[in-house]
Every structure is written in structure tokens, then in C-alpha cells.
């Protein structure tokens, strides 16, 4: 197992386990113990409202990882569908789809996200749908390119002559042949979605307080950094290690995919 897989696996496990581990409350405030350093009662100290930093840090991955996972799965399905459809039909429809994809790609995603969160709403459903729409185009483009190559090969012609349906060709012939490229691209987009969502929370337009979320925690902790750096450093370390882990994993997969 690569280091990347260990880090990412560990993060997923921690995010799941945070709900069952005997941790202190995420929201309980203790006005007698604000901004304390590490101690037996609070292993990573407390934040500016006297909340347990360890518990908040471990729970803090749940919103971003959850939103990013659902959004990237939707984006992957959408991107794969659009990409293979465009490659299969070809012609003007193919061109039209890819031009729309190009326009969506040129949009500044954080700006669009902020506008949606502020004007339409910051409910998880709205944000997940927006993220999926914003991050499907790059996946569609990669899938379109890769499946376009596969579709010109002889075994596709053979499948067509066998009388295989379009669906059978896409699922049985195209998907296995572009799987490596596709999965790598989806993993890359997962980190971008994760970063976009935590940036949004950092800017005060994503997760609402008092939910524990890394971007929001970092934003809250900034004002008290001179008193206690732990409430800032703990979520910074978690977010940084998760991003690095996914990148290490993607890098390895990309290298393994090379002939």
C-alpha cells in the first residue's frame, strides 16, 4: 500500500469513526476554559468558545468529505455520461456539447459557488448540486478524449458487428479501457471540490456555525492565534494531510497508468 492510500484511508476511517468514538461534544461551550493549551481533559486544548478542539477537528472532516464525495460521484456520473455520449454520437451534437463544457470550464468556480450560496441558499443539497455541475465538465472533457480514442479501435468495430447495443459497448468495452484515466481525473476533482467547499466555509458562505468544519474552524481560530495556535493548527494539519494524501494517490495511479 502506498503512503497516499494509507493517509486517505485513515482520513475516511477517522471521519466515520468520529461519530462513534467517545469524544466530547462538538458544540458544548465551557466559558471557564477558553483557548486553553493541551491538557488531560482537552488533548488539543479548547477554542475561543471553550469547545474541545480534538473532537471538533475529528468531526470537522465530515461535512467537507461528505459533500465532496457525493458531489464528485454525481460529477463523475454526469461527466462520464456526457463524455461517452458526445464521443458516440459525434458530429454537430458532439461539438455543441463540448463547447458548452468549455464555457462551464471557463467560469470561476469559487465566484459561482459564492453567488449560489448567497442568493439561492447554502443547504447541502444546493451546494452539492452546484459543485457537481461545476466539476463535471473537466471529467466530461477527459472522458470524451479518452473514449474517442478507444472508439476508433478494432474491438469496438467487432462489438458493433456482433450487434452489441450502445450501452453494452459503453459499459463493456469503453469503460474498462478508460478506467485508469477516468478514476485519476475523478480523484483530482475530488480534491478541487474539497478545497472549493472548505474555502467557501472559510469565507463564511458554506457550513454554518456551530457545525465543526475545517475551513470554518480555521476562519474562527485566526483571531485568537496569538493566545493559542492549536485551534488553527489542528484543522490545518488535517486538511493539508488529506489533500497531500489524495495527490500522492493520484500521482501513483497516474504513473501506474503509463505504458
Amino acid at each position, binding site marked *: 500500500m502506498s503512503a497516499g492510500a494509507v493517509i486517505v484511508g485513515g482520513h475516511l476511517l477517522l471521519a466515520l469513526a468520529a461519530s462513534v468514538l467517545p469524544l466530547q461534544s462538538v458544540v458544548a461551550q465551557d466559558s471557564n476554559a477558553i483557548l486553553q493549551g493541551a491538557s488531560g481533559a482537552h488533548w488539543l486544548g479548547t477554542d475561543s468558545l471553550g469547545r474541545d478542539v480534538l473532537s471538533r477537528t475529528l468531526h470537522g472532516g465530515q461535512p467537507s468529505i461528505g459533500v465532496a464525495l457525493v458531489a464528485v460521484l454525481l460529477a463523475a456520473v454526469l461527466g462520464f455520461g456526457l463524455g461517452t455520449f458526445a464521443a458516440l454520437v459525434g458530429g454537430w451534437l458532439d461539438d455543441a456539447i463540448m463547447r458548452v463544457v468549455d464555457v462551464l470550464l471557463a467560469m470561476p468556480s469559487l*465566484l459561482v459557488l*459564492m*453567488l449560489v450560496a*448567497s442568493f439561492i441558499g447554502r443547504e447541502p443539497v444546493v451546494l452539492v448540486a452546484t459543485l457537481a455541475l461545476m466539476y463535471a465538465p473537466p471529467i466530461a472533457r477527459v472522458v470524451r478524449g479518452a473514449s474517442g480514442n478507444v472508439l476508433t479501435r478494432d474491438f469496438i468495430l467487432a462489438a458493433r458487428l456482433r450487434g452489441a447495443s450502445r450501452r453494452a459497448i459503453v459499459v463493456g468495452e469503453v469503460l474498462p479501457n478508460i478506467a485508469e484515466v477516468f478514476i485519476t481525473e475523478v480523484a483530482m476533482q475530488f480534491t478541487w471540490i474539497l478545497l472549493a467547499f472548505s474555502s467557501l466555509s472559510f*469565507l463564511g458562505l458554506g457550513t454554518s456555525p456551530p457545525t465543526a468544519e475545517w475551513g470554518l474552524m480555521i*476562519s474562527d481560530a485566526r483571531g485568537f492565534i*496569538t493566545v493559542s495556535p492549536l485551534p488553527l493548527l489542528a484543522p490545518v494539519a488535517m*486538511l493539508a494531510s488529506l489533500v497531500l494524501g489524495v495527490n500522492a494517490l493520484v500521482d501513483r495511479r497516474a504513473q501506474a497508468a503509463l505504458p
Partner: protein
Amino acid sequence: MTAYLLRRLAISLGVFTVMSVLVFLGVEALPGDACTALLGRSATATKLAQCRGANGLNASVSHRLIDWASGLLRGDLGFSIKRGKSVVDIVLPRLRNSLALATVASLMAFPLAIVVGVWSARRKGTRVARAVDTVSLVLMTMPEFVTASVLWLLFAVWLPLLPGVTMVSSNASLLEILPNIWLPAITLALVVFAHVMRSMRASFLVTEERPFVEAARARGIAERVVVRRHILPAALPAPINVIAVTAAWLLTGTFVVEVVFNFPGLGRIAVDAISDRDTALILALTLFGLVVFIASSFVSDAVTRALDPRMRAQVAS
């Protein structure tokens, strides 16, 4: 070349006109308007009607579009009801600050990125080159508020060398702003450095494999001359395109970094404007982003053409 530039300029103007109308309609389509945002929870039907009447929001969309467009031609970007100020007065001082920030970050990042890119391409495979590669990848993928927070902790709190949070107002003199530029500029420089450096290195490595480089080396031309006169002119267009895109981002995408350091630029006012739904201001800022985006692709195309002898020849013939 002049004919090409003129044609390209005409296309840019056309794109701008079409896109700015789309942006206007897009902001128009957002739920709520300036009056619902201004009145908030205290909004009643009569108060809303009064506010809309006073600010000319009852006119039809096409009417207001024409109003807005003709104002734009006269250099009038509208009036922010929320802030009780003309949009130009809000945007101009912050535009100056953002320009200063982007300039400092560019000067820190771009020349160094080109040099390090070439350097690491020529030392491909060595341990130092691989270390530089890893560090740049980390910087590229880290969220800006993480990089910014770490830098802040290091250079403003633990080693109090630089001011962490800007305390001066947006229209303070540049001299007062300058000390506050360093930390946000370093953060931005680190992010864009990695992008440009990696593109320079990749482009250099690809160009080095081409036959004309081998031919130049076979003729016994000194390596320094091969790098300067043969590889670089062919390898530079790719990183220059990246520079154009990242320079545009430095002017329009710096929301997070400006918020971290409380820097009084366009990014922070954009976050504020979006948070309190100040549509007049959002419209002006989006339009500015559009201008920067179109200008950067124009400049990058022009520079690429000017650099590449083959493209120059094509235009001449």
C-alpha cells in the same frame, strides 16, 4: 501583425459586449434585488415599493439594461444602494490596492519561476530537482487559506517581522498599504510560482527532444547559446500562457487571500458584496473580471505570436 492585432481586438470587443449583457441578465435573474437586500427582514410591501420607486427598479429589464449600458459608456458603474455610494468610488481605491498586490506578487513569482523551471529541467532526475518538484506540487494543491495561515503564524506571530492583519483603510496612501502587502503577496506568489515553474520545466523538456535542438548541438554550438537561442524561444509560449492566466487570477481570484489578511482589495469587497447581495457592486466586479479575462487572453496570444518566428512568418506571408 497589426492586421492580426486589430482583428483580435475587434473580436475581444464583440465578446465583451455579448458577455456583459449576459452578465447583466444573469445578475438580474438572481432571486431578490437591491431593495430586498437593503431592507432585509424589515421589508414590507409598502417599504419595498417605496425603495424600488426611489431607485428606479420598477422599470423593465430592457430599459434598465440600456440605462446601465449607457452609464457604462460614460464611466458610470451605477450606485450601490446598500453602501450609499457610487460603485466607482468603492471600486477605484480597491482596484489600485489589488493592482499593487498583483504587481508585487508577479515580480516575486514569475521571473524566478522561469529561471527555476529551466534550471530544474536541465538537472532533471537529480535529488534537488525532485525536491523542488515535490515542494511546488504541495504549494500548488494546498488551499490558500492553509498556506496563508501558516505564513501568518510564522512571520507575523512567532517571528513578528511583518504585519498580519491590515488595519489601514482602503483609500490610505500606497506607502501606508505597502507594509501590509508582503504577506498576502508572498502567499499568492507561492501559489502561482508552482504553476509557472512546472509549465516552464515541462515545455523545456519537450522542446529539448526536438530535432532542431539536436541539430544545433551537433553543429557544436555552445550549450548556453543552444538554451538561449534555440530552446527558450520555442519553449516559452506555454509558460507565457500560464503567466497570462495566473496574472488574470491574481487580479480577480484572490478572494480568500485578501480575506485572510484583511487586505483592502477587490477580492475582499467582492466577498462582502456577495454576502450582503449588493447587486450593483457584484455586477461591476464581475464585469471587471470579464475585462481582465479577455485582456489576458489577448495579451498572451499577441506575445506568443511575437515570440514565435514561425507564427511571425505566417502573418507576414
